[in-house]
């Protein structure tokens, strides 16, 4: 359903003449912001479905980056960039529908089996619902953009567009493309962390308490997921069949010749069929290694008196509650990005020898929700009430802001305060970072004002052409 926006965007783009470069760069920037923040917020979630929903924000970001590169190519007349940008975006739309659909179905099966979607209360489901676990893992590998599944093919083409952007367009746009490459890499790493967290906590390890005893996934649910899973694998292993189809879509959006997409792919990357070869090699290696391992294990079988427990580093009475939780798993990454996310953490640590119960609570407020949409909707409701009551104040009295919003530092304020504190503390790393940042700013200014740079190329040529 969220892809309707993408569809509308692409339709409108197909009607418009090529937009100026700035629009394209803004689009890429939107993609970057949406992607990085989406996956960071996903990492901070405690609920399975909310987490998946935030990943849609991330994937729309990836699609947005692809569309932005396509627009950039249109603005600068680079057909390869147009083909790869729009092509990657369209393919990712399809892929996202497949693997995200599979993930939501699988999450639904988890909730149906256990009665909760709270990640930290689940555990060990791979033992109870092995088929569902396999589907979830497959979709997770795919959404992280890892080979040899369909997610990789889409991201590979978007990467191709971004890399092509770094070298074939003028400086500023090339810099934005490089930023896109870096953000896509960061998103890939964060998505991996996020899905390791979800799959590791929900499906692996020991069963945590507080959930219903899980039942096996019904056959009809498995069948539905199976279709999506087969499609995910098929596109990943045989991209040569699907990728050319996106060429037709690109042709509709941009005025490109019918063969432009087929030409652009090998000129920048390689024919998509090369990925199939590598996928075959990969599966062949897995099969060989598995057979060798099986042979070795059967030859040297160990007879154990009873099933053994996990090595607890000398501690023999480990309980399921002692497992690493999803919140702890994500915390080291979240705290690295605390300047951006402002995660809240309330810790009531045990202090005395005979201490009372300890308590830890963590929560991450969504910046877009809290600082953009909430004020927007409050303003909208105020305006509507002003119209209703025909008064400037919008009586009866407006609802108060929630207490939490005022406690929390706004993200921008937080960054400024944090930066000032860091400078005061005199940390050498921060100084180095500031020097690097200053150099980048100087570089950006230099790019902007230098003669021959993209921003000023047109007026200069006019001046040269003018009679003296």
């Amino acid at each position, binding site marked *: 359903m969220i892809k309707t926006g993408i569809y509308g965007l692409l339709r409108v783009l197909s009607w418009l003449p090529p937009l100026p470069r700035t629009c394209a760069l803004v689009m890429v920037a939107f993609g970057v912001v949406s992607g990085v923040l989406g996956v960071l917020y996903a990492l901070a979630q405690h609920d399975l479905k909310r987490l998946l929903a935030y990943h849609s924000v991330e994937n729309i970001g990836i699609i947005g980056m692809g569309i932005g590169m396509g627009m950039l190519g249109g603005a600068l007349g680079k057909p390869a960039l147009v083909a790869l940008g729009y092509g990657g975006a369209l393919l990712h739309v399809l892929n996202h529908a497949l693997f995200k659909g599979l993930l939501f179905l699988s999450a639904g099966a988890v909730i149906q089996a256990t009665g909760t979607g709270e990640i930290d209360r689940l555990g060990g489901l*791979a*033992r109870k619902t092995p088929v569902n676990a396999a589907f979830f893992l497959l979709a997770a590998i795919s959404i*992280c*953009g*890892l*080979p040899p599944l369909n997610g*990789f093919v889409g991201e*590979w083409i978007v990467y191709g567009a971004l*890399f092509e952007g*770094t*070298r074939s367009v*003028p400086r500023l746009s090339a*810099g934005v493309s*490089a930023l896109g*490459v*870096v*953000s896509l*890499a960061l998103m*890939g*790493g*964060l998505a*991996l*962390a996020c899905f390791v967290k979800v799959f*590791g906590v929900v499906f*692996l*390890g020991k069963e945590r308490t507080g959930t219903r005893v899980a039942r096996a996934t019904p056959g009809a649910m498995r069948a539905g997921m199976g279709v999506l899973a087969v499609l995910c694998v098929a596109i990943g292993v045989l991209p040569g069949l699907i990728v050319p189809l996106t060429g037709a879509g690109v042709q509709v959006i941009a005025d490109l010749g019918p063969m432009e997409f087929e030409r652009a792919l090998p000129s*920048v*990357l*390689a024919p998509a069929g*090369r990925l199939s070869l*590598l996928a075959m*090699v*990969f599966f062949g290696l897995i099969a060989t*290694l598995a057979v060798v*391992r099986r042979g*070795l*294990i059967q030859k040297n*079988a*160990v007879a154990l008196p009873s*099933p*053994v*427990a*996990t*090595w*607890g*580093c000398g501690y023999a009475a*480990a309980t*399921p509650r*002692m*497992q*690493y939780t999803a919140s*702890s*798993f994500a915390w*080291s*990454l979240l705290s*690295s990005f605390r300047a951006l996310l402002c995660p809240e953490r309330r810790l009531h640590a045990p202090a005395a020898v005979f201490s009372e119960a300890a308590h830890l609570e963590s929560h991450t407020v969504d910046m877009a929700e809290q600082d953009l949409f909430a004020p927007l909707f409050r303003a909208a409701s105020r305006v509507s009430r002003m119209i209703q009551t025909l008064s400037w104040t919008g009586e009866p009295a407006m609802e108060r802001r929630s207490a939490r919003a005022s406690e929390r530092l706004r993200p921008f304020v937080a960054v400024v305060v944090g930066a000032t504190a860091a400078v005061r503390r005199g940390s050498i*790393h921060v100084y*180095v*970072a500031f020097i*690097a940042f200053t150099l980048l700013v100087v570089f950006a200014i230099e790019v902007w004002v230098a003669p021959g740079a993209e921003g000023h190329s047109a007026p200069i040529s006019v001046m040269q052409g003018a009679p003296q």
Partner: protein
Amino acid sequence: MTVLRAIGAVPEAVAVLALPPMLLSIIAKTKAWFGGRDGPPWLQPYYDLMKLLRKGVVYSRTTTWVFRAGPIVNLAALLCAATLIPVFSDDTLLGFGGDVILIAYLLALGRMLTVLAAMDTGSSFEGMGASREVTFGTMSEPALFLSFVVLALATKSLSLAEMLGAPLQAAWGDVAPAMLLVVAALLIVLLTETCRVPVDDPATHLELTMIHEVMVLDHSGPDFAYITYAAALKFLLLGSILVHAALPHASWALWIDAPLRVVELAVLAMLVGVIESSLARLRLQRVSLLLAGAFVLSGLAAVLTFYRTHA
């Protein structure tokens, strides 16, 4: 790619597969020399692997098929990456345009399955190691990709074999400072990805402070042999990228090139040994600063290269 080259690829592949444990041995010997010891025999890593392959396997009752799949997929992903990375010669077996992205993502796939296998044991120690591994992996990825951007800009290619081949030699003449910065960034990425000091200490004996070692605590027998070998192979592959980026030369005959590359890799292993002997490992919170440093270095390299290529 002629028939002759295809035949030549067989001994080359054998050499690539045989070399990784030797590099670990060189690191161990260097550290032993710094400590005033003799150190283990040169072939000790090979003996260890043979011993592990002959052992039986013990699985915890908590684990599932994910635990068994982890070492296999990890090693398969790295072997697959090995067909795309130039090690001795300047070309690769299956390389193609855009293979740098595939290589980085194959490494990530191996990491994902290793980490999941650790989570599968239900041990809080292994969960802790898993959390650290994905944290540092996530942070090293932007630096790696930004280095790739610089190499791609300097050589106008997206195929790793070309990005590290003759065009790079010209780039060294053109923007040497940028290339130096990229090499520094790649060294930090190498130390992080292969779990070496100052990020992780492979010799530590305290589970709480480990990263890689604690994740594989529960593996045994052939599974553990796969993991140990995969770790060595990862060092060889990332080391080859680093060595090729630092010292590119035009394609010489293979019989000159291959021994030269072996020597360069040995020197790199010695360098890592020196780093391990002379540096303490960083506090865990500080590692992210080191990786941010690698990112800044490659970012500056990108700025310098942009100046040259987009003049």
